[in-house]
Protein backbone atom coordinates (compact mmCIF):
# COMPACT_ATOMS: atom_id res chain seq x y z
CA UNK A 1 0.00 0.00 0.00
CA UNK A 2 1.46 3.31 -1.08
CA UNK A 3 0.72 5.93 1.51
CA UNK A 4 2.27 9.36 1.51
CA UNK A 5 1.40 11.74 4.30
CA UNK A 6 4.42 14.01 4.32
CA UNK A 7 6.17 13.82 0.97
CA UNK A 8 3.30 13.80 -1.49
CA UNK A 9 3.74 13.25 -5.20
CA UNK A 10 2.24 16.62 -6.08
CA UNK A 11 4.40 18.97 -8.17
CA UNK A 12 5.21 22.33 -6.56
CA UNK A 13 3.49 21.35 -3.32
CA UNK A 14 5.89 23.67 -1.51
CA UNK A 15 4.13 26.67 -3.04
CA UNK A 16 1.33 28.19 -1.03
CA UNK A 17 -1.14 28.36 -3.95
CA UNK A 18 -0.63 24.67 -4.78
CA UNK A 19 -0.89 23.73 -1.12
CA UNK A 20 -4.12 25.70 -0.83
CA UNK A 21 -5.54 24.17 -4.00
CA UNK A 22 -5.15 20.77 -2.33
CA UNK A 23 -7.09 21.73 0.76
CA UNK A 24 -4.26 23.45 2.61
CA UNK A 25 -5.00 25.81 5.51
CA UNK A 26 -8.55 24.38 5.71
CA UNK A 27 -7.66 21.86 8.41
CA UNK A 28 -6.74 24.67 10.80
CA UNK A 29 -10.32 25.93 10.34
CA UNK A 30 -11.60 22.54 11.41
CA UNK A 31 -9.17 22.50 14.35
CA UNK A 32 -10.30 25.93 15.54
CA UNK A 33 -13.85 24.60 15.90
CA UNK A 34 -12.57 22.00 18.32
CA UNK A 35 -11.61 22.70 21.93
CA UNK A 36 -7.83 22.63 22.54
CA UNK A 37 -8.30 19.66 24.87
CA UNK A 38 -10.17 17.78 22.17
CA UNK A 39 -7.25 18.26 19.79
CA UNK A 40 -4.88 16.89 22.41
CA UNK A 41 -7.25 13.93 22.91
CA UNK A 42 -7.35 13.29 19.17
CA UNK A 43 -3.53 13.30 18.99
CA UNK A 44 -3.41 10.99 22.00
CA UNK A 45 -5.86 8.68 20.25
CA UNK A 46 -3.68 8.63 17.15
CA UNK A 47 -0.75 7.21 19.17
CA UNK A 48 1.58 9.58 17.34
CA UNK A 49 5.07 9.28 18.77
CA UNK A 50 7.86 11.83 18.45
CA UNK A 51 10.01 11.47 15.37
CA UNK A 52 13.14 13.08 16.81
CA UNK A 53 14.60 9.93 18.33
CA UNK A 54 13.09 9.30 21.75
CA UNK A 55 9.64 8.35 20.45
CA UNK A 56 7.70 10.00 23.27
CA UNK A 57 3.89 10.08 22.72
CA UNK A 58 3.10 13.56 21.38
CA UNK A 59 -0.39 13.89 22.84
CA UNK A 60 0.89 13.01 26.29
CA UNK A 61 3.68 15.59 25.99
CA UNK A 62 1.14 18.27 25.12
CA UNK A 63 -1.08 17.35 28.04
CA UNK A 64 1.76 18.31 30.44
CA UNK A 65 1.37 21.96 29.41
CA UNK A 66 -0.49 24.06 31.97
CA UNK A 67 -3.95 25.22 30.83
CA UNK A 68 -3.51 28.79 32.06
CA UNK A 69 -3.42 30.98 28.94
CA UNK A 70 -2.56 34.19 30.79
CA UNK A 71 1.16 33.34 31.00
CA UNK A 72 3.48 33.18 27.98
CA UNK A 73 3.75 29.69 26.54
CA UNK A 74 6.10 28.57 23.79
CA UNK A 75 6.33 25.92 21.14
CA UNK A 76 9.72 25.02 19.68
CA UNK A 77 10.01 23.00 16.51
CA UNK A 78 13.24 21.05 16.48
CA UNK A 79 14.85 21.09 13.05
CA UNK A 80 18.42 20.92 14.28
CA UNK A 81 18.81 17.56 12.51
CA UNK A 82 22.46 16.80 13.17
CA UNK A 83 22.34 13.10 13.95
CA UNK A 84 24.69 11.42 11.49
CA UNK A 85 22.54 9.39 9.11
CA UNK A 86 19.44 11.58 9.28
CA UNK A 87 18.47 14.02 6.57
CA UNK A 88 14.69 13.88 6.68
CA UNK A 89 13.58 17.23 8.11
CA UNK A 90 15.17 19.12 5.26
CA UNK A 91 12.86 17.22 2.88
CA UNK A 92 9.93 18.78 4.71
CA UNK A 93 11.48 22.28 4.62
CA UNK A 94 12.04 21.84 0.90
CA UNK A 95 8.97 19.99 -0.33
CA UNK A 96 6.21 20.48 2.23
CA UNK A 97 6.81 23.57 4.38
CA UNK A 98 3.18 24.66 4.53
CA UNK A 99 1.98 21.40 6.04
CA UNK A 100 4.59 22.03 8.75
CA UNK A 101 3.32 25.58 9.26
CA UNK A 102 -0.29 24.40 9.43
CA UNK A 103 0.78 21.72 11.90
CA UNK A 104 2.48 24.38 14.02
CA UNK A 105 -0.68 26.52 14.01
CA UNK A 106 -2.84 23.59 15.15
CA UNK A 107 -0.31 22.55 17.80
CA UNK A 108 0.10 26.10 19.07
CA UNK A 109 -3.68 26.42 19.39
CA UNK A 110 -3.90 23.10 21.22
CA UNK A 111 -1.31 24.03 23.86
CA UNK A 112 -2.02 27.76 23.84
CA UNK A 113 1.41 28.90 22.63
CA UNK A 114 1.55 32.51 21.48
CA UNK A 115 5.05 32.22 20.05
CA UNK A 116 6.69 29.41 18.11
CA UNK A 117 10.30 29.04 17.08
CA UNK A 118 11.48 26.75 14.32
CA UNK A 119 15.07 25.93 15.25
CA UNK A 120 17.01 25.03 12.10
CA UNK A 121 20.69 24.09 12.02
CA UNK A 122 22.87 26.89 10.68
CA UNK A 123 24.47 24.84 7.90
CA UNK A 124 21.08 24.56 6.19
CA UNK A 125 21.37 28.11 4.69
CA UNK A 126 19.38 27.18 1.60
CA UNK A 127 16.69 25.31 3.50
CA UNK A 128 16.33 28.19 5.94
CA UNK A 129 15.73 30.44 2.92
CA UNK A 130 13.08 28.04 1.59
CA UNK A 131 11.36 27.82 4.94
CA UNK A 132 11.53 31.60 5.40
CA UNK A 133 9.93 32.09 1.99
CA UNK A 134 7.08 29.74 2.92
CA UNK A 135 6.67 31.51 6.24
CA UNK A 136 6.60 34.95 4.58
CA UNK A 137 3.89 33.71 2.22
CA UNK A 138 1.86 32.37 5.12
CA UNK A 139 2.20 35.72 6.94
CA UNK A 140 1.18 37.56 3.76
CA UNK A 141 -1.94 35.41 3.43
CA UNK A 142 -2.86 36.18 7.02
CA UNK A 143 -2.42 32.63 8.30
CA UNK A 144 0.27 33.51 10.80
CA UNK A 145 0.64 36.47 13.13
CA UNK A 146 -1.99 38.92 14.29
CA UNK A 147 -3.95 38.71 11.02
CA UNK A 148 -4.81 35.14 12.04
CA UNK A 149 -7.60 36.56 14.20
CA UNK A 150 -9.23 38.24 11.20
CA UNK A 151 -8.66 35.38 8.78
CA UNK A 152 -10.25 32.77 10.99
CA UNK A 153 -12.46 34.92 13.21
CA UNK A 154 -11.04 33.70 16.52
CA UNK A 155 -9.54 35.31 19.57
CA UNK A 156 -6.17 33.62 19.22
CA UNK A 157 -3.07 34.05 17.15
CA UNK A 158 0.50 32.86 17.12
CA UNK A 159 3.75 34.13 15.69
CA UNK A 160 6.20 31.77 14.07
CA UNK A 161 9.88 32.66 13.80
CA UNK A 162 12.87 30.82 12.45
CA UNK A 163 15.81 30.67 14.82
CA UNK A 164 18.96 29.40 13.19
CA UNK A 165 21.65 27.51 15.03
CA UNK A 166 25.34 27.84 14.37
CA UNK A 167 26.75 24.35 14.27
CA UNK A 168 26.25 22.35 17.45
CA UNK A 169 24.80 18.83 17.51
CA UNK A 170 23.89 19.19 21.16
CA UNK A 171 21.36 21.93 20.36
CA UNK A 172 19.09 19.16 19.09
CA UNK A 173 18.66 18.17 22.73
CA UNK A 174 15.50 19.93 23.85
CA UNK A 175 16.85 21.82 26.85
CA UNK A 176 20.07 22.76 25.02
CA UNK A 177 17.88 24.03 22.21
CA UNK A 178 16.07 26.31 24.64
CA UNK A 179 19.35 27.62 26.01
CA UNK A 180 20.50 28.28 22.47
CA UNK A 181 17.33 30.27 21.74
CA UNK A 182 17.90 32.22 24.94
CA UNK A 183 21.28 33.28 23.57
CA UNK A 184 23.40 31.03 25.74
CA UNK A 185 25.74 28.20 24.97
CA UNK A 186 23.82 25.05 24.14
CA UNK A 187 24.20 23.34 27.50
CA UNK A 188 21.51 20.80 28.35
CA UNK A 189 19.63 21.51 31.58
CA UNK A 190 19.10 19.19 34.48
CA UNK A 191 15.63 17.65 34.41
CA UNK A 192 13.34 18.00 36.31
CA UNK A 193 12.00 20.65 36.00
CA UNK A 194 10.74 19.60 32.59
CA UNK A 195 10.19 22.14 29.80
CA UNK A 196 6.40 21.99 30.20
CA UNK A 197 6.85 23.59 33.65
CA UNK A 198 10.06 25.52 33.23
CA UNK A 199 11.13 26.03 29.67
CA UNK A 200 12.11 29.07 27.63
CA UNK A 201 12.82 31.96 30.02
CA UNK A 202 11.18 29.87 32.73
CA UNK A 203 7.81 29.63 31.00
CA UNK A 204 5.99 26.46 29.87
CA UNK A 205 7.43 25.19 26.61
CA UNK A 206 6.88 22.22 24.36
CA UNK A 207 9.52 20.97 21.95
CA UNK A 208 8.52 18.75 19.03
CA UNK A 209 10.37 17.45 16.01
CA UNK A 210 9.63 18.85 12.54
CA UNK A 211 8.36 15.51 11.21
CA UNK A 212 6.10 15.04 14.25
CA UNK A 213 4.38 18.38 13.73
CA UNK A 214 4.04 17.86 9.99
CA UNK A 215 1.87 14.83 10.84
CA UNK A 216 -0.58 16.87 12.94
CA UNK A 217 -2.76 18.26 10.09
CA UNK A 218 -3.26 14.69 8.79
CA UNK A 219 -4.42 13.51 12.21
CA UNK A 220 -6.91 16.36 12.58
CA UNK A 221 -8.17 15.94 9.03
CA UNK A 222 -8.59 12.16 9.02
CA UNK A 223 -8.95 11.48 12.74
CA UNK A 224 -6.81 9.71 15.30
CA UNK A 225 -8.41 6.31 14.61
CA UNK A 226 -7.55 6.50 10.94
CA UNK A 227 -3.95 7.42 11.71
CA UNK A 228 -3.57 4.66 14.27
CA UNK A 229 -4.34 2.06 11.63
CA UNK A 230 -1.33 2.94 9.50
CA UNK A 231 1.64 0.69 10.12
CA UNK A 232 2.32 -0.76 13.55
CA UNK A 233 -0.39 0.05 16.17
CA UNK A 234 2.14 0.85 18.89
CA UNK A 235 4.11 3.23 16.67
CA UNK A 236 1.71 4.23 13.89
CA UNK A 237 2.04 6.45 10.86
CA UNK A 238 4.66 6.73 8.21
CA UNK A 239 8.32 7.45 8.79
CA UNK A 240 10.78 9.26 6.59
CA UNK A 241 13.47 6.61 6.37
CA UNK A 242 16.78 8.07 5.26
CA UNK A 243 18.90 5.35 3.74
CA UNK A 244 22.61 6.00 3.27
CA UNK A 245 25.93 4.21 3.07
CA UNK A 246 26.45 1.17 0.87
CA UNK A 247 23.20 1.10 -1.09
CA UNK A 248 22.54 1.68 -4.78
CA UNK A 249 19.84 4.30 -4.33
CA UNK A 250 20.36 6.25 -1.12
CA UNK A 251 17.70 8.76 -0.19
CA UNK A 252 14.59 9.43 1.87
CA UNK A 253 11.69 6.99 1.55
CA UNK A 254 8.36 7.59 3.23
CA UNK A 255 7.01 4.23 4.33
CA UNK A 256 4.61 2.98 7.03
CA UNK A 257 6.18 1.91 10.29
CA UNK A 258 6.70 -1.82 10.46
CA UNK A 259 8.07 -1.99 6.90
CA UNK A 260 10.66 -4.74 6.67
CA UNK A 261 14.22 -3.46 6.85
CA UNK A 262 15.16 -5.82 4.02
CA UNK A 263 12.39 -4.30 1.88
CA UNK A 264 13.72 -0.81 2.55
CA UNK A 265 17.25 -1.80 1.64
CA UNK A 266 16.57 -4.08 -1.34
CA UNK A 267 13.23 -2.96 -2.73
CA UNK A 268 13.45 0.79 -2.27
CA UNK A 269 17.14 1.62 -1.88
CA UNK A 270 18.14 -0.72 -4.69
CA UNK A 271 20.28 -3.23 -2.77
CA UNK A 272 24.00 -3.27 -2.12
CA UNK A 273 26.51 -2.24 -4.80
CA UNK A 274 28.26 -5.28 -6.27
CA UNK A 275 25.68 -7.58 -4.62
CA UNK A 276 27.83 -7.76 -1.53
CA UNK A 277 26.59 -9.04 1.79
CA UNK A 278 25.57 -6.71 4.59
CA UNK A 279 27.89 -6.72 7.58
CA UNK A 280 26.23 -4.14 9.78
CA UNK A 281 23.22 -1.82 9.81
CA UNK A 282 22.72 1.23 12.00
CA UNK A 283 18.93 1.51 11.97
CA UNK A 284 18.27 4.99 13.35
CA UNK A 285 21.21 7.36 13.27
CA UNK A 286 24.65 6.69 14.76
CA UNK A 287 23.58 6.89 18.39
CA UNK A 288 21.45 3.72 18.30
CA UNK A 289 23.05 0.30 18.80
CA UNK A 290 24.14 -1.22 15.49
CA UNK A 291 22.77 -4.59 14.42
CA UNK A 292 24.47 -7.47 12.58
CA UNK A 293 23.76 -8.22 8.96
CA UNK A 294 22.46 -11.65 9.94
CA UNK A 295 19.90 -10.10 12.30
CA UNK A 296 17.99 -8.10 9.68
CA UNK A 297 15.94 -10.85 8.04
CA UNK A 298 12.27 -10.32 8.94
CA UNK A 299 13.05 -7.28 11.08
CA UNK A 300 10.30 -4.67 11.11
CA UNK A 301 11.20 -1.01 11.32
CA UNK A 302 9.27 0.38 14.26
CA UNK A 303 10.15 1.30 17.82
CA UNK A 304 8.93 -1.92 19.45
CA UNK A 305 10.40 -4.39 16.94
CA UNK A 306 13.79 -2.70 17.08
CA UNK A 307 13.72 -2.69 20.86
CA UNK A 308 13.32 -6.47 20.73
CA UNK A 309 16.58 -6.90 18.83
CA UNK A 310 18.35 -4.50 21.16
CA UNK A 311 18.35 -1.35 19.11
CA UNK A 312 16.12 1.69 18.58
CA UNK A 313 14.30 3.48 15.80
CA UNK A 314 16.00 6.80 16.57
CA UNK A 315 15.48 9.21 13.69
CA UNK A 316 14.99 6.48 11.10
CA UNK A 317 18.36 7.19 9.50
CA UNK A 318 19.50 3.81 8.21
CA UNK A 319 23.22 3.42 7.51
CA UNK A 320 24.10 0.23 5.63
CA UNK A 321 27.60 -1.23 5.63
CA UNK A 322 28.70 -4.00 3.29
CA UNK A 323 30.93 -6.98 4.09
CA UNK A 324 34.17 -5.12 3.31
CA UNK A 325 33.58 -2.32 5.80
CA UNK A 326 36.22 -1.74 8.47
CA UNK A 327 34.08 -1.52 11.60
CA UNK A 328 36.97 -0.33 13.77
CA UNK A 329 37.30 2.67 11.50
CA UNK A 330 33.54 3.25 11.55
CA UNK A 331 33.39 3.07 15.33
CA UNK A 332 36.37 5.39 15.70
CA UNK A 333 34.68 7.90 13.39
CA UNK A 334 31.40 7.71 15.30
CA UNK A 335 33.24 8.19 18.58
CA UNK A 336 35.16 11.13 17.15
CA UNK A 337 31.82 12.76 16.39
CA UNK A 338 30.57 12.44 19.97
CA UNK A 339 33.91 13.56 21.34
CA UNK A 340 33.69 16.66 19.14
CA UNK A 341 30.07 17.38 20.01
CA UNK A 342 30.18 16.73 23.75
CA UNK A 343 29.30 20.07 25.34
CA UNK A 344 31.75 19.50 28.18
CA UNK A 345 29.39 19.95 31.11
CA UNK A 346 29.59 16.43 32.53
CA UNK A 347 32.96 14.85 33.19
CA UNK A 348 32.05 11.26 32.19
CA UNK A 349 31.02 12.39 28.72
CA UNK A 350 33.66 15.09 28.20
CA UNK A 351 36.58 12.87 29.26
CA UNK A 352 35.12 9.48 28.43
CA UNK A 353 34.48 10.21 24.78
CA UNK A 354 38.09 11.37 24.43
CA UNK A 355 39.41 8.23 26.12
CA UNK A 356 37.31 5.99 23.93
CA UNK A 357 38.55 7.82 20.85
CA UNK A 358 42.18 7.42 21.91
CA UNK A 359 41.77 3.71 22.57
CA UNK A 360 39.96 3.18 19.27
CA UNK A 361 42.68 5.04 17.39
CA UNK A 362 45.23 2.84 19.11
CA UNK A 363 43.39 -0.26 17.89
CA UNK A 364 43.03 1.27 14.44
CA UNK A 365 46.81 1.68 14.25
CA UNK A 366 47.39 -1.93 15.25
CA UNK A 367 48.66 -1.16 18.72
CA UNK A 368 45.67 -2.31 20.74
CA UNK A 369 45.46 -5.31 22.98
CA UNK A 370 42.51 -7.46 23.97
CA UNK A 371 42.36 -5.63 27.30
CA UNK A 372 41.54 -2.47 25.36
CA UNK A 373 38.23 -3.96 24.24
CA UNK A 374 37.17 -4.55 27.82
CA UNK A 375 38.48 -1.13 28.77
CA UNK A 376 36.32 0.45 26.05
CA UNK A 377 33.23 -1.29 27.35
CA UNK A 378 34.14 -0.28 30.88
CA UNK A 379 34.51 3.39 29.89
CA UNK A 380 31.24 3.23 27.91
CA UNK A 381 29.44 1.76 30.93
CA UNK A 382 30.74 4.57 33.07
CA UNK A 383 29.43 7.22 30.68
CA UNK A 384 26.02 5.67 30.14
CA UNK A 385 23.45 7.01 32.54
CA UNK A 386 25.91 9.29 34.32
CA UNK A 387 25.30 12.47 32.35
CA UNK A 388 22.73 15.26 32.30
CA UNK A 389 21.52 14.56 28.78
CA UNK A 390 21.35 11.59 26.45
CA UNK A 391 24.50 12.47 24.49
CA UNK A 392 26.47 10.36 26.93
CA UNK A 393 24.27 7.35 26.21
CA UNK A 394 24.44 8.10 22.51
CA UNK A 395 28.24 8.00 22.68
CA UNK A 396 28.35 4.88 24.84
CA UNK A 397 25.88 2.66 22.98
CA UNK A 398 27.64 2.38 19.62
CA UNK A 399 30.91 1.48 21.37
CA UNK A 400 29.35 -1.01 23.72
CA UNK A 401 27.12 -2.78 21.23
CA UNK A 402 29.46 -2.63 18.26
CA UNK A 403 32.13 -4.45 20.28
CA UNK A 404 29.62 -6.84 21.81
CA UNK A 405 28.03 -7.74 18.48
CA UNK A 406 31.19 -7.80 16.38
CA UNK A 407 33.64 -9.02 19.00
CA UNK A 408 35.34 -11.38 16.52
CA UNK A 409 36.03 -8.48 14.19
CA UNK A 410 37.63 -6.42 16.93
CA UNK A 411 39.56 -9.38 18.38
CA UNK A 412 41.27 -9.83 15.04
CA UNK A 413 42.65 -6.32 15.25
CA UNK A 414 44.19 -6.54 18.68
CA UNK A 415 46.97 -8.54 20.22
CA UNK A 416 46.04 -10.96 22.93
CA UNK A 417 47.31 -9.97 26.30
CA UNK A 418 47.53 -12.34 29.21
CA UNK A 419 48.28 -11.30 32.72
CA UNK A 420 50.40 -13.88 34.51
CA UNK A 421 50.57 -13.76 38.24
CA UNK A 422 54.15 -13.89 39.38
CA UNK A 423 54.70 -15.05 42.94
CA UNK A 424 57.13 -12.25 43.58
CA UNK A 425 54.95 -9.44 44.98
CA UNK A 426 57.10 -6.69 43.52
CA UNK A 427 56.53 -7.92 40.01
CA UNK A 428 53.03 -9.22 40.37
CA UNK A 429 51.49 -6.26 38.63
CA UNK A 430 53.64 -6.69 35.58
CA UNK A 431 51.80 -7.58 32.40
CA UNK A 432 53.44 -9.80 29.86
CA UNK A 433 52.59 -9.73 26.20
CA UNK A 434 52.41 -13.21 24.78
CA UNK A 435 52.00 -13.70 21.05
CA UNK A 436 48.94 -15.64 20.01
CA UNK A 437 50.26 -18.85 18.46
CA UNK A 438 53.67 -19.85 19.77
CA UNK A 439 52.35 -20.39 23.28
CA UNK A 440 53.14 -24.09 23.84
CA UNK A 441 53.38 -25.79 27.15
CA UNK A 442 55.30 -29.02 27.33
CA UNK A 443 53.64 -31.97 28.98
CA UNK A 444 56.07 -32.21 31.89
Amino acid sequence: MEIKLLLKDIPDYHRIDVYKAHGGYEIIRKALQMKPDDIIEEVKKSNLRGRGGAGFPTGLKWSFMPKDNSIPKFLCINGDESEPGSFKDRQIFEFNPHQLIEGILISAYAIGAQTCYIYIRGEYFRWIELMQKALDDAYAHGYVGEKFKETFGVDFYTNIYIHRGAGAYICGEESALMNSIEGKRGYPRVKPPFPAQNGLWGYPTTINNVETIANIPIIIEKGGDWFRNIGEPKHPGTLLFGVSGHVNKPGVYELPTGTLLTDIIYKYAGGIPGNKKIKCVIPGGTSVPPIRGDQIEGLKMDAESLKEVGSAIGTGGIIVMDEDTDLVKVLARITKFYWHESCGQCTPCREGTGWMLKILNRILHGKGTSKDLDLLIDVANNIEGHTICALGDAAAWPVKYMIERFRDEFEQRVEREIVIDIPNKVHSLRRTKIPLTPLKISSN
Partner: protein
Amino acid sequence: MEIRFTDEELQKIESLKTRYLKPDSVILEVLYLIQEKYGFISYEGIKYASKILDISEEHVYGIVSFYSMFNTKPIGKYHLQVCTNVSCMLRGAYELLHKLEDELKIKAGETTPDGLFTISEVECLGSCGTAPVIQINKDYLENLNEDKLMHVLNDLKKAYGN
Protein backbone atom coordinates in the same frame (compact mmCIF):
# COMPACT_ATOMS: atom_id res chain seq x y z
CA MET B 1 39.95 46.60 12.12
CA GLU B 2 37.03 48.67 13.25
CA ILE B 3 33.78 46.76 13.54
CA ARG B 4 30.65 48.79 12.91
CA PHE B 5 27.12 48.03 11.83
CA THR B 6 25.25 50.43 9.58
CA ASP B 7 22.06 52.03 10.90
CA GLU B 8 20.09 49.64 8.73
CA GLU B 9 21.83 46.64 10.23
CA LEU B 10 21.33 47.94 13.75
CA GLN B 11 17.67 48.43 12.98
CA LYS B 12 17.41 44.85 11.73
CA ILE B 13 18.94 43.62 14.98
CA GLU B 14 16.47 45.77 16.94
CA SER B 15 13.53 44.32 15.05
CA LEU B 16 14.83 40.79 15.63
CA LYS B 17 14.91 41.50 19.36
CA THR B 18 11.13 41.96 19.40
CA ARG B 19 10.74 38.25 18.57
CA TYR B 20 12.09 37.22 21.95
CA LEU B 21 11.35 37.86 25.59
CA LYS B 22 14.92 38.94 26.20
CA PRO B 23 17.29 40.66 23.76
CA ASP B 24 20.19 38.21 24.39
CA SER B 25 18.58 35.77 21.97
CA VAL B 26 19.76 37.68 18.91
CA ILE B 27 23.42 37.08 19.72
CA LEU B 28 23.83 34.36 17.10
CA GLU B 29 22.42 36.67 14.44
CA VAL B 30 24.75 39.49 15.52
CA LEU B 31 27.72 37.15 15.30
CA TYR B 32 26.57 35.86 11.90
CA LEU B 33 26.38 39.43 10.67
CA ILE B 34 29.88 40.24 11.92
CA GLN B 35 31.23 37.10 10.29
CA GLU B 36 29.46 37.85 7.03
CA LYS B 37 30.77 41.42 6.90
CA TYR B 38 34.30 40.89 8.14
CA GLY B 39 34.96 37.25 7.26
CA PHE B 40 35.65 36.11 10.80
CA ILE B 41 35.02 37.11 14.39
CA SER B 42 37.99 38.94 15.82
CA TYR B 43 38.43 40.17 19.36
CA GLU B 44 37.13 43.54 18.17
CA GLY B 45 34.06 41.73 16.86
CA ILE B 46 33.49 40.13 20.23
CA LYS B 47 33.89 43.51 21.93
CA TYR B 48 31.42 45.09 19.52
CA ALA B 49 28.80 42.35 20.01
CA SER B 50 29.27 42.67 23.75
CA LYS B 51 28.75 46.41 23.54
CA ILE B 52 25.60 46.52 21.43
CA LEU B 53 23.91 43.68 23.31
CA ASP B 54 25.14 44.66 26.75
CA ILE B 55 26.48 41.16 27.42
CA SER B 56 29.90 40.52 28.93
CA GLU B 57 32.80 39.83 26.55
CA GLU B 58 33.42 36.52 28.28
CA HIS B 59 29.90 35.37 27.54
CA VAL B 60 30.19 36.39 23.89
CA TYR B 61 33.52 34.58 23.58
CA GLY B 62 31.95 31.53 25.19
CA ILE B 63 29.32 31.51 22.48
CA VAL B 64 31.76 32.09 19.64
CA SER B 65 33.92 29.19 20.78
CA PHE B 66 30.94 26.90 21.42
CA TYR B 67 29.35 27.01 17.98
CA SER B 68 31.47 25.48 15.26
CA MET B 69 30.29 27.75 12.46
CA PHE B 70 32.02 30.82 13.89
CA ASN B 71 35.60 31.38 12.79
CA THR B 72 37.96 33.22 15.09
CA LYS B 73 40.64 33.36 12.40
CA PRO B 74 40.47 34.70 8.85
CA ILE B 75 39.42 32.06 6.34
CA GLY B 76 39.69 31.77 2.58
CA LYS B 77 37.22 33.19 0.11
CA TYR B 78 35.92 29.68 -0.43
CA HIS B 79 35.50 27.59 2.67
CA LEU B 80 35.60 23.94 1.63
CA GLN B 81 33.94 21.99 4.41
CA VAL B 82 34.30 18.28 3.86
CA CYS B 83 31.90 16.08 5.78
CA THR B 84 33.73 12.91 6.84
CA ASN B 85 31.10 11.37 9.06
CA VAL B 86 30.09 7.74 8.63
CA SER B 87 27.75 7.94 5.63
CA CYS B 88 30.14 10.17 3.71
CA MET B 89 33.17 8.16 4.85
CA LEU B 90 31.61 4.96 3.51
CA ARG B 91 31.30 6.66 0.14
CA GLY B 92 34.82 8.01 -0.06
CA ALA B 93 34.89 11.32 1.85
CA TYR B 94 38.43 10.83 3.16
CA GLU B 95 39.70 10.12 -0.35
CA LEU B 96 38.14 13.42 -1.44
CA LEU B 97 39.62 15.25 1.53
CA HIS B 98 43.09 13.90 0.80
CA LYS B 99 42.73 14.72 -2.87
CA LEU B 100 41.81 18.28 -1.93
CA GLU B 101 44.76 18.53 0.45
CA ASP B 102 47.14 17.27 -2.26
CA GLU B 103 45.68 19.55 -4.89
CA LEU B 104 45.78 22.72 -2.79
CA LYS B 105 48.94 21.69 -0.90
CA ILE B 106 47.46 22.51 2.48
CA LYS B 107 46.09 20.40 5.33
CA ALA B 108 42.57 20.46 6.74
CA GLY B 109 42.23 23.57 8.89
CA GLU B 110 44.64 25.61 6.77
CA THR B 111 44.22 28.32 4.16
CA THR B 112 46.02 28.60 0.84
CA PRO B 113 48.63 31.42 0.75
CA ASP B 114 46.56 33.33 -1.83
CA GLY B 115 43.66 33.36 0.63
CA LEU B 116 41.35 31.67 -1.83
CA PHE B 117 40.62 28.32 -0.16
CA THR B 118 40.30 26.99 3.37
CA ILE B 119 39.78 23.28 3.93
CA SER B 120 37.92 22.07 7.00
CA GLU B 121 36.93 18.60 8.07
CA VAL B 122 33.41 18.93 9.47
CA GLU B 123 30.81 16.74 11.14
CA CYS B 124 27.62 15.45 9.54
CA LEU B 125 26.01 18.06 7.30
CA GLY B 126 22.70 16.22 7.10
CA SER B 127 23.17 15.22 3.50
CA CYS B 128 23.87 11.51 3.95
CA GLY B 129 21.59 10.45 1.09
CA THR B 130 23.68 12.42 -1.37
CA ALA B 131 27.06 11.57 0.13
CA PRO B 132 29.83 12.45 -0.11
CA VAL B 133 29.15 16.13 0.33
CA ILE B 134 31.22 19.28 0.62
CA GLN B 135 29.78 22.58 1.76
CA ILE B 136 31.33 25.54 -0.04
CA ASN B 137 30.34 28.66 1.86
CA LYS B 138 26.54 28.42 1.89
CA ASP B 139 26.04 25.75 -0.74
CA TYR B 140 26.11 21.99 -0.64
CA LEU B 141 27.94 20.11 -3.39
CA GLU B 142 26.33 16.72 -3.31
CA ASN B 143 27.00 13.28 -4.84
CA LEU B 144 30.63 14.22 -5.31
CA ASN B 145 33.40 12.26 -6.93
CA GLU B 146 36.98 13.30 -7.66
CA ASP B 147 36.28 14.45 -11.23
CA LYS B 148 33.31 16.56 -10.22
CA LEU B 149 35.26 18.09 -7.33
CA MET B 150 38.28 18.96 -9.51
CA HIS B 151 35.95 20.48 -12.06
CA VAL B 152 34.34 22.72 -9.45
CA LEU B 153 37.72 23.62 -7.97
CA ASN B 154 39.03 24.69 -11.37
CA ASP B 155 35.92 26.76 -11.99
CA LEU B 156 36.37 28.54 -8.70
CA LYS B 157 40.04 29.21 -9.42
CA LYS B 158 39.16 30.59 -12.86
CA ALA B 159 36.40 32.77 -11.48
CA TYR B 160 39.02 34.40 -9.28
CA GLY B 161 41.43 34.91 -12.21
CA ASN B 162 44.09 32.37 -11.25
